[in-house]
């Protein structure tokens, strides 16, 4: 192969590694100290890009020159740093002690809020920033032209690494940050005000995210998709490097930059897949990444369903509920039936996640993977093999179960935040496959023409079919939760060491639970595909996973029936509010944050507490 081409390819790999490192470095420092995986870090990066793309051209009008350009970049990063301080003071400070699931959800709430705010503030169109003065002409490398700005970026990574190293090694702030990364309580016992230390850390982390974003403006236009694409990559970098490790992040960014640069040559469309596969391989070999340590895994507080006495007259309630479900078509119109069908599907999806999180303490952030696998499995069977719905649904379920068994085999070795990230990675790999393997999956357009068999088509029959399948599966899962198997999972959730000491094979139980939950989610996905007549990659996306988590949270994570209520509440709210306002994501984000802060027991949990206090 042409050596000049290889050199240029390696250089562009280095420059994307630099950008990635600058951003991921902030994420890993913030995690190290606060133990919060800040989903909003990508949003800060996006704000940095928008701010710089808006601010720098105005500054250049006042005084054109390299000094102005770089001052503008720096000013944008400082502005983002201050936004990070606001986020810390208003939100993060209140959730340092919360379970990791709530932390992830709350910061994802910030992502949603920022998405709508960015459009409100900067407008819906992409903004292309100015090119850097003095760096407009490309340089020649082995006879090929290479943008000189990229060379500056290549240098920026090591410079930031050096400065961060000096800050962490040679200043009192840095020494305290490193100490707090290891043992926060001890730092407090030595008289250090953690609140200030954490606010300072958030400023540093947000500053780096903003810098990472601002440096992009001459290369890519600021756009509203930047937040989730960078956060996925930054997660991979921090996880592969070892959570909390700055040198680890640097090394991981270098590896990933080169992998992306040369992965294009091998899999032209699937750089995402390569990146997430790297993460899977690294975590399989080193469960804490390159330089991570076992004690820095985050998420030591499991929350889950609590044992309680069975409600009196529960079979009566159950029969009444089933009767109401069965009689619903008598009173509802086609639209309501469609809504009810979707609520039932999502209730099943959320309930399958409850088996993992509430019962098993396995905080999966990628449960959409199996929902999507079930949907795609069914749709692909219809499209490529022309099978009927009766065969396609079990096929989808089987594909989801198989996928869950495979992913689960990796996942059950991990714990805490690494587990959440690994499941997220698995879902992102599948998302990338569905998105990029256009010939088979239809890419962005997905697959259409996935219709139920004649006997089940029409709103009423399909609603009834959904209701029957959902009720049967939920009852089956409930039976599993109440069986000794469910108790073993709960034992492992509450104390791994003790559960192991009484002879439970924790990994095997968790793997089994993961597969069952994946199969149930796959069934929900299959039913969903036939209800809409189509599938598309968004079914596998982060927001579908978060939807399920939000339903759990809304309904109440400590109750068995919470997810069912949560699915109804979230879906109902969405159908009701979304047509009324363009700021749906802002509202949803704020609601998620509010739920985490003031309502963490969810609807069912709160009602139960109230009932319990009354009687």
């Amino acid at each position: 192969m042409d050596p000049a081409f290889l050199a240029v390819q390696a250089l562009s790999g280095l420059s994307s590694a630099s950008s990635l490192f600058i951003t991921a470095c902030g994420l890993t420092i913030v995690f190290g100290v606060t133990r919060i995986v800040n989903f909003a870090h990508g949003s800060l990066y996006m704000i940095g890009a928008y701010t710089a793309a808006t601010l720098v051209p105005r500054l250049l009008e006042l005084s054109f020159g390299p000094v102005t350009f770089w001052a503008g970049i720096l000013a944008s990063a400082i502005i983002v740093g201050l936004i990070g301080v606001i986020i810390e003071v208003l939100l993060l400070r209140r959730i340092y002690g919360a379970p990791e699931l709530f932390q992830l959800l709350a910061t994802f709430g910030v992502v949603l809020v920022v998405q709508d705010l960015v459009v409100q503030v900067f407008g819906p169109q992409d903004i292309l920033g100015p090119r850097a003065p003095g760096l407009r002409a490309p340089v020649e490398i082995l006879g090929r032209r290479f943008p000189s700005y990229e060379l500056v970026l290549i240098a920026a990574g090591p410079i930031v690494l050096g400065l961060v190293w000096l800050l962490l090694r040679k200043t009192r702030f840095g020494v305290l940050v490193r100490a707090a990364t290891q043992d926060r309580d001890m730092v407090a016992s030595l008289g250090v005000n953690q609140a200030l230390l954490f606010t300072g850390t958030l400023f540093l982390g947000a500053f780096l995210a903003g810098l990472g974003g601002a440096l992009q403006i001459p290369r890519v236009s600021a756009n509203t998709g930047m937040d989730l694409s960078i956060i996925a990559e930054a997660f991979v970098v921090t996880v592969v490097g070892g959570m909390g490790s700055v040198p680890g992040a640097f090394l991981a960014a270098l590896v990933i930059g080169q992998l992306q640069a040369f992965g294009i040559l091998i899999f032209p469309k699937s750089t995402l897949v390569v990146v997430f596969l790297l993460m899977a391989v690294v975590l399989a070999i080193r469960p804490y990444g390159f330089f991570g340590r076992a004690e820095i895994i985050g998420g030591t507080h499991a929350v889950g369903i609590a044992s309680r006495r069975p409600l009196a007259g529960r079979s009566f309630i159950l029969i009444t509920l089933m009767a109401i479900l069965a009689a619903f078509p008598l009173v509802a119109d086609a639209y309501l039936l469609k809504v009810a069908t979707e609520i039932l599907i999502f209730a099943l999806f959320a309930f399958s996640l409850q088996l993992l999180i509430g019962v098993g303490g396995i905080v999966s952030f990628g449960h959409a993977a199996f929902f999507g696998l079930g949907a795609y499995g069914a749709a692909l069977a219809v499209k490529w093999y022309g099978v009927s719905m009766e065969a396609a649904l079990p096929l989808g379920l089987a594909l989801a179960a198989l996928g869950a068994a495979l992913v689960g085999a990796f996942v059950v070795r991990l714990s805490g935040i690494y587990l959440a990230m690994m499941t997220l990675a698995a879902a992102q790999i599948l998302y990338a496959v569905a998105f990029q393997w256009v010939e088979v999956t239809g890419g962005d357009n997905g697959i259409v023409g996935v219709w139920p068999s004649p006997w089940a088509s029409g709103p009423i029959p399909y609603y009834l079919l959904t209701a029957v399948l959902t009720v049967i599966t939920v009852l089956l899962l409930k039976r599993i939760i109440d069986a000794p198997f469910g108790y073993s999972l709960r034992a492992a959730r509450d104390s791994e060491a003790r559960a192991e000491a009484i002879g439970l094979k924790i990994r095997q139980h968790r793997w089994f639970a993961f597969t069952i939950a994946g199969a149930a989610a796959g069934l929900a996905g299959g039913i969903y595909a036939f209800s809409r007549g189509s599938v598309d990659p968004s079914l596998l996306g982060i927001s579908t996973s978060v939807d399920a988590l939000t339903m759990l949270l809304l309904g109440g994570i400590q109750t068995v029936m919470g997810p069912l209520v949560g699915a109804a509440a979230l879906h109902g709210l969405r159908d009701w509010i979304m047509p009324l306002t363009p700021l749906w994501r802002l509202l949803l984000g704020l609601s998620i944050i509010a739920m985490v802060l003031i309502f963490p027991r969810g609807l069912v949990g709160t009602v139960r507490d109230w009932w319990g206090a009354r009687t």
Partner: protein
Amino acid sequence: MNAPLLEVWDLCAFYGRAQVLFNLTFRLQAGEVMALVGRNGAGKTTALKAIMGLVSASARQATFKGHSLGKLPTYKIARLGLGYVPEDRRIFTDLTVEENLETGRRPAGSGRSPWTPERLFRLFPNLAEMRGRRGSQMSGGEQQMLAIARTLMGNPDAILLDEPSEGIAPVIVQMMAEAIRAMKAEGVAVLLSEQNWAFAAGISDRACVIERGEIRFQGSMAELMANETLRAETLGV
């Protein structure tokens, strides 16, 4: 009698629903060494943690230098001049000896000569030879010295010292006793939690015997030495 430096009354603590401390009331005078002694699990460590505000389910009335500790966060308690050396030492293993000392540094009160790394290295000569070494590469005894030195860097008026002799070599235990005497000579009061009776008896002015979360005896060390029945019953020595 002077106003006590540290006064604690009705200290209770809970782990879940189980109460582990029952209305402990005691005082620590400026410049004295008092030992909390008792069997394993009696509640000594919990008592020290609760004073520092590190046990979430605890109720206590406490004053330090006349300030109510009330619901103060841990760092503010430490800033009043109350140092804490935990039982498991909790050295920052990624940090060097000098960096560990830096984490504890706080300005000294007026009229006191502040502790500096140099002074501490004279107190613990072993540490002087390993200034650049990381905490993870130190022995248990060295870590214990570093933990005490780190807390002294905050120039405290009193130190809560949890099991300083646990799991370290006898020769280092001897050095530890000397260090505590040296601290006392500098006017630092020490509230010591100890299972090693001989060690506690050798350096303490007063003692407080805790059994199952309750105080069984409070008085001078000499008194406790004399009371063989009580010792045999509560401490097994």
